[in-house]
């Protein structure tokens, strides 16, 4: 029974996608129900599957479709606590996104294909979550990559959307090639593609190439989960519609990488080198992305860098061996980040601009989007890790794990030898995590203040300065000063606010979340959580003080600097502001080192094809032409010419005959 429901969970959105693609033109009235209902049904079924499975149990089912001649590939499901919880998260967030999109993309002519692709994406992620076979997981992984290409490039009339979608696709694919080889190494060592087979082999120490496989897999994880150095696609992918960002870049696709490492944590725990690589990658990502988030002007880019940083947190937890903390943070982050993106959509829609500096000069935004204002506040508090929101509990679980690893007793939950987690790695993750907590609280506060607390000079109250014509028109037009959020956009916000508030408590009670995972305690340690909270409050406070200073300067220097905004970032970052704003030049570096030589090589190949190979082709075409023209001269109608040829032939024959005598 549970298995049947579990099969239906990915199947329903897939069928909904197919039906949506087919019905898009012919039956436009069916499109919205086909978008929302299969995903809603899948959410209900996922909950039922979770209830039906029960904590601490797992369910395996496999069937072999065709013999492959080598290692068998099976269509198998592996349902355990992690899988069912994550499936619930994915389907609930997907439902919220679909409902939100019915209003957000109401006037979009390509809404049917968009909704179908979102359903397809949901189905692929559910396949990844429920899959018990590495190759089936890979199928879901790649389908997600393709759907993300289509969805990020939804507004393909805009060049930034086009290039962002190609960039996302290429960067994730760059990670996927070593990922594929990692799967092959793993499977050839373990003798099977089944995940539980691989995990069993890892736990009994039968993986001779664990390090190699783990590092290859990490390349794919870095691409999919936007870790350094393959993180550059995520900020640019904000060119897609905001609900897409909520689904893909908050809760699901980027979570797939973390989920994979969590699933194969026993393999990673076999190899210290892989853990070190993962940990260093995580710490660099965390700190770098937090600095970049502090410097961004675009609201969505702040959230994008924030996602990268939070994923770094999860990767850090996995690096110190505690996958339960990582999964806890994955679930809470999925909820509050999706909430933040959906709120951002509402705010941007109301303000007609993405720019924070523009919003900081716009009056009345709070009144126009009160629900978004409230829920965004909740989401940002969870992001900053303030108690009692869910983010506090999950982030502190991670820091606790790092602390345990620093003390030499990594919380691995029996998945692998704890001795493979070096102490210095634990210290690094701990200190990096605390620093990132400071920066996270700072940029969350900055976002909140800039968006909703405008600072304007008195004369600007009469003639509001707006950055774009649309914003100016919105401000002076007869748009209502009251709330402008449609109900379809408001309901998902409040729905997601509930787990943002309450999910943290679930981790405290051992019979709740830990029982579903590996039984590792998720209670924050009494040493870590005060430090972390103090650090977060410090960061928020610093940001607030800097904002006050900047606001005072804006109000004071009214005459000289018309375009100033009350941005605390220059004060907080100082000389790092300019590099942080452009992502520390990683994009430029990639462009110089990879893109330009590649384009030059492509131009060279095109040149060779045109000049060298085409020349042969044209020559092959031209030669018969030349021959024809030459032969045609024999038929030019000049009788004297014909006679000359005749006479020459006769003379020649005579000579030959004479000589041959």
């Amino acid at each position, binding site marked *: 029974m549970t298995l049947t429901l579990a099969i239906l969970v990915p199947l329903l959105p897939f069928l909904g996608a197919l039906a949506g693609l087919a019905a898009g033109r012919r039956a436009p009235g069916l499109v919205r129900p086909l978008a929302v209902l299969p995903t809603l049904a899948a959410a209900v079924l996922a909950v039922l599957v979770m209830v039906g499975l029960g904590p601490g149990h797992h369910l395996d089912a496999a069937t072999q479709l065709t013999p492959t001649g080598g290692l068998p590939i099976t269509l198998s499901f592996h349902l355990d606590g992690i899988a069912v919880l994550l499936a619930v998260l994915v389907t609930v967030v997907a439902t919220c996104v679909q409902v939100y999109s019915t209003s957000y993309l109401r006037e979009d002519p390509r809404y049917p294909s968009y909704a179908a692709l979102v359903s397809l994406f949901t189905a692929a992620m559910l396949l990844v979550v429920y899959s018990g076979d590495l190759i089936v997981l890979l199928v879901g992984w790649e389908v997600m990559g393709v759907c993300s290409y289509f969805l990020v490039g939804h507004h393909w009339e805009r060049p930034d959307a086009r290039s962002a979608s190609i960039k996302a696709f290429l960067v994730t694919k760059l990670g996927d090639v070593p990922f594929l080889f990692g799967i092959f190494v793993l499977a050839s060592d373990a003798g099977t593609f089944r995940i539980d087979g691989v995990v069993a082999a890892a736990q009994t120490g039968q993986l001779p190439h664990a390090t190699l496989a783990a590092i290859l897999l990490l390349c794919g994880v870095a691409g999919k989960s936007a870790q350094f150095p393959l993180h550059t696609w995520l900020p640019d992918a904000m060119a897609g519609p905001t609900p897409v960002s909520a689904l893909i870049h908050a809760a699901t696709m980027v979570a797939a990488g973390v989920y994979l490492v969590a699933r194969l944590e026993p393999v990673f725990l076999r190899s210290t080198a892989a853990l070190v690589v993962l940990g260093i990658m995580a710490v660099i990502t965390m700190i770098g992305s937090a600095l970049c988030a502090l410097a961004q002007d675009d609201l969505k880019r702040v959230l994008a860098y924030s996602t990268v940083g939070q994923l770094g947190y999860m990767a850090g937890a996995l690096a110190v061996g505690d996958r339960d903390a990582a999964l806890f943070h994955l679930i809470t982050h999925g909820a509050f980040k999706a909430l933040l993106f959906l709120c951002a959509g509402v705010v941007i829609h109301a303000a007609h601009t993405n720019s924070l500096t523009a919003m900081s000069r716009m009056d009345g935004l709070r009144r126009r989007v009160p629900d978004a204002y409230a829920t965004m506040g909740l989401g940002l508090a969870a992001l900053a890790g303030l108690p009692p929101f869910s983010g506090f509990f999950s982030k502190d679980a991670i820091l606790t794990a790092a602390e345990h690893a620093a003390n030499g007793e990594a919380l691995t939950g029996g998945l692998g030898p704890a001795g493979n987690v070096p102490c210095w790695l634990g210290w690094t993750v701990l200190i990096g995590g605390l620093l990132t907590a400071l920066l996270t609280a700072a940029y969350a506060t900055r976002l909140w203040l800039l968006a909703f607390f405008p600072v304007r000079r008195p004369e600007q109250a009469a003639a509001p300065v707006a950055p774009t014509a649309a914003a100016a028109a919105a401000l002076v037009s007869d748009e209502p000063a009251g709330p402008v959020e449609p109900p379809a956009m408001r309901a998902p916000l409040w729905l997601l606010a509930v787990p943002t508030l309450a999910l943290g408590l679930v981790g405290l009670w051992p019979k709740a979340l830990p029982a579903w995972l590996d039984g590792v305690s998720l209670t924050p340690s009494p040493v870590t959580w005060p430090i972390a909270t103090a650090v977060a409050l410090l960061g928020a406070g610093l940001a607030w003080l800097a904002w006050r200073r900047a606001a005072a300067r804006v109000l004071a220097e009214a005459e000289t600097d018309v375009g100033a905004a009350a941005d605390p970032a220059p004060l907080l970052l100082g000389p790092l502001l300019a590099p942080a704003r452009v992502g520390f030049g990683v994009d430029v570096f990639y462009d110089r080192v990879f893109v330009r030589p590649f384009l030059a090589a492509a131009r060279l190949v095109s040149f060779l094809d045109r000049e060298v190979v085409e020349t042969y082709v044209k020559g092959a075409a031209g030669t018969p032409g030349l021959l024809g023209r030459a032969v045609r001269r024999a038929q030019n109608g000049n009788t004297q010419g014909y006679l000359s040829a005749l006479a*020459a032939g006769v*003379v020649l024959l*005579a000579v030959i005959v004479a000589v041959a005598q």
Partner: protein
Amino acid sequence: MTKLATAPALDSTHGFLSPSGVEIVFVLVGLAVLGAALLTVTTKQLVHAALWLVVALGGLAIEYLLLTAEFVAWVQVLIYVGAVVVLVLFGLMLTRAPIGVSPDADSGNRWVALGVAVAAAATLVTLVVDAFRSTWIDLGTVAGSTTANGVTLFRYWVLPFEALSVLLLAALVGAIVLSRRTARDEKER
């Protein structure tokens, strides 16, 4: 059909280094003929070409005389020089040949033609010299008198002779038919 009466015998008194008078005159007239023929085919003045042709044909008549073929020589003068050349001159006039130098008298083919002609000349001369190296004509008795010709023509060659007259008639009629102007041409003019 050809009945060889007597084959000429090798005469030991003949030799290259002591040509007889006939031979000398023959060679000189031959040179004149060749020169006139060359001028015919190379001169750029069309009417001059016709006149040089007269010289060439006349020179050939002298050669015939030297070869004791009198009847043929006079027929040559009568018909070729008298009729054919006049016809050629008429043709030149009626086709408005330019008086004086016409620059495009030779076509672009001439180099190929030169090559072919030189090759043919070389081949033929070599063959001929090689074949007739030690052959002499006996010019003692006159071979081409009118009597002799008349006898052979009307005794052995009557049928071809009559056919020839029919041919001439056909040519005459054909020439008239080809070159007359029809009533339609008259109206168009």
